[in-house]
């Protein structure tokens, strides 16, 4: 067990779950810009392990690609997009979305001085603060806190996971994590009476106390959030009927849960989901294909479901990973940790097509990795300001430019 990122108690100053309507919390009210952007939702889909971007968005007309990957190169079945680039053979459904104009691909996304440690690089993507040694706040946590300060109730949620991701962490809010909706229910024996009694006692036990330190505040706030959200979310999602059949895969189920939460209109604007397994050091071919097939099909189902509910125009999905992988394959029929890679954006108001500048395969960095051409924080800035209506500079620690991913909003 390591000294954790989120340790050093006594300095975190966590407070109880934000109960909106108690007035704007100091410092955060200035972050909100467009309250009218109130219905737009962001779904952050994390591909954990380092997705091999070069075999996802394939420069199949570049001889250098084929030369670097004699075993792993994609030879046939790829879905051509345009301009010499194609999607992996298992991403057919996403290729369809591309043709419809709902999919944007940003090539060559990364950041300066790329770090090749899973943990460090993911911390950087989730905090957007490479200057922080051990970040404890996430860019979307800060955005959610700003939304909460402006009156949003439960603006963010982690789905399909029991642990909150760093990107959703912030002081002053407690973000619920729902692993499985069916299990997200408090069971209490002892009949109706017993349930009521225990609920009352629970309220007493979790009320703010004078001697409370940061640990106590976290525990109490979480207990209250769990009790409140368990009832609220199950009730709100009870009437959901899927408009399409979601794939019976882990990612399919997670995105169906996302669809449920979004269509329940309970005010949640930011969702985070995660698909693991992308750290393909060995035997990449089949594993990577299966992962991409799973995520592509699940995303296509989400798009169809939300479109049927007329929610697709108000939804933006961002697919990201902590780093791309090395251009040259290794001797284990896999690839090692690399640097820059593509980011995908999907949604009804996305400006579909290719964005950014493709990194040159003949101009790699000292480690043999792709050089980034778009800083990921430029994408975040666009999402924060133009999609969520939250001022980006304080959250990102500076001004960043990025591709214009959204149609006029």
């Amino acid at each position: 067990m390591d000294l954790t990122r989120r340790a050093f108690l006594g300095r975190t100053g966590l407070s109880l779950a934000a109960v909106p309507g108690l007035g704007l919390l100091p410092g955060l009210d200035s972050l909100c810009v467009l309250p009218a952007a109130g219905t737009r939702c962001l779904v952050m889909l994390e591909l954990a392990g380092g997705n091999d971007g070069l075999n996802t968005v394939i420069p199949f007309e570049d001889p250098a690609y084929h030369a670097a990957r004699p075993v792993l190169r994609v030879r046939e079945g790829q879905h051509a997009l345009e301009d010499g680039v194609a999607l992996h053979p298992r991403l057919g459904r996403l290729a369809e979305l591309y043709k419809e104009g709902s999919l944007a691909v940003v090539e060559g996304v990364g950041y300066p001085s790329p770090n090749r440690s899973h943990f460090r690089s993911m911390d950087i993507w989730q905090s957007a603060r490479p200057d922080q040694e051990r970040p404890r706040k996430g860019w979307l946590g800060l955005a959610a806190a700003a939304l909460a300060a402006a009156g949003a109730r439960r603006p963010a949620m982690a789905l399909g996971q029991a642990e909150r991701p760093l990107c959703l962490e912030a002081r002053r809010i407690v973000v619920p994590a729902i692993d499985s909706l069916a299990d997200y229910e408090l069971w209490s024996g002892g009949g109706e009476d017993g349930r009521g009694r225990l609920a009352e006692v629970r309220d007493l036990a979790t009320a703010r106390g004078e001697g409370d330190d940061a640990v106590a505040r976290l525990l109490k706030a979480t207990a209250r959030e769990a009790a409140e959200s368990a009832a609220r979310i199950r009730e709100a999602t009870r009437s959901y009927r899927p408009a399409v059949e979601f794939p019976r895969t882990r990612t399919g189920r997670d995105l169906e849960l996302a669809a449920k939460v979004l269509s329940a209109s309970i005010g949640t604007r930011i969702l985070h989901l995660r698909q693991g397994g992308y750290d393909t050091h060995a035997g990449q071919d089949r594993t990577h294909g299966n992962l991409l097939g799973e995520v592509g099909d699940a995303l296509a189902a989400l798009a169809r479901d939300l479109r049927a509910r007329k929610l697709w125009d108000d939804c933006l999905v961002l697919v990201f990973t902590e780093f791309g992988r090395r251009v040259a394959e290794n001797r284990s029929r896999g690839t090692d940790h690399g640097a820059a890679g593509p980011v995908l954006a999907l949604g009804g108001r996305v400006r579909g097509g290719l964005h950014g500048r493709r990194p040159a395969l003949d101009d790699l960095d000292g480690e043999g990795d792709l050089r980034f051409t778009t800083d990921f924080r430029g994408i975040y800035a666009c999402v924060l300001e133009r999609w969520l209506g939250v001022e980006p500079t304080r959250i990102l620690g500076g001004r960043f430019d990025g591709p214009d991913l959204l149609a006029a909003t």
Partner: protein
Amino acid sequence: MAGQWQVFRRLGLGPFRTLVGEVARGPAMIRWLDNETNVKGRANENFARELFELFTLGRDQGYVEADVKEAARAFTGWTIRKDAFWFDHSKHDGGLKRVLGHEGRLDGEAVLDLAVAHEACARHVAAKLLACFVGPAAPPEAVAELAAVFRAADGDVARCLEVLLGSELFFDPAQRGTRIRGPVEWILWVLRTLGLRASPRALHRAAARMGQALLEPPDVAGWDEEEAWISSATWIHRQNFAARLASAEGRPELRPGLEDVVPGDDDGYAYLGPTLFPDGLGQGSARAVARLGEAGRGLPREQRLAGLCETLWMLPEAHRF
């Protein structure tokens, strides 16, 4: 993984270099970090990177990318045959290497020697021991002190623990309650403080839902701990576990029953309070317990005990130590 766990039990308190050596040669580590395919000519860096970052030196402490690449070459040929370590000479890169400032025809054992002897390793291990036995609020000076003990004792972990567990810091009241009980820690506390037992299978399932499936860590770094254990989802799982265990439905699994371990014929708080919470309770919790006591008057003892246990096990104080 079970094999690796046995290694921890057997060698965890001994010289750290011995533990590192056994774990590095274990099938779990070799398989998980792709060392079976780490061969001469195309080294696979996975194991070398995590060796430095997670197990010996700590992230970015005293090593650079070039060290990872060179160290990977040193571990070529370390593979498995019939579920046991096997060194494949033909796959090993015996050439000159430079790792952590040392040059030579370094092999895997030599790199392990260098990593453990590095000053960053002493600090890394000291920090881990302090985080576990004292808590996240342990002062930085303690790390330096314990690291010095580690070095002086040639990496003997038992000696480090001896010093740590006898130190003023360990007994400092300001350090009490700074750690959050992980799923297994909390479940065992619930059972052991009252001398209860339950089906191991059920406990394993429960801990897995709370985020800790034993022998199945989410990745090679193990579990994120402390505050990461606490989310609304895991809280619901803990609550449900406490409720089921305390109620009649949980009874068949629970040996002995609550009525058998709690003396007296009242609701049992006179016994349960001090047993579970020797440091006492905060105001909110104390009030809650009093209220529960009042509301339970007149109910059969079994029900009062169940309600009380469920409540006590889920007080905020129950989840920290």
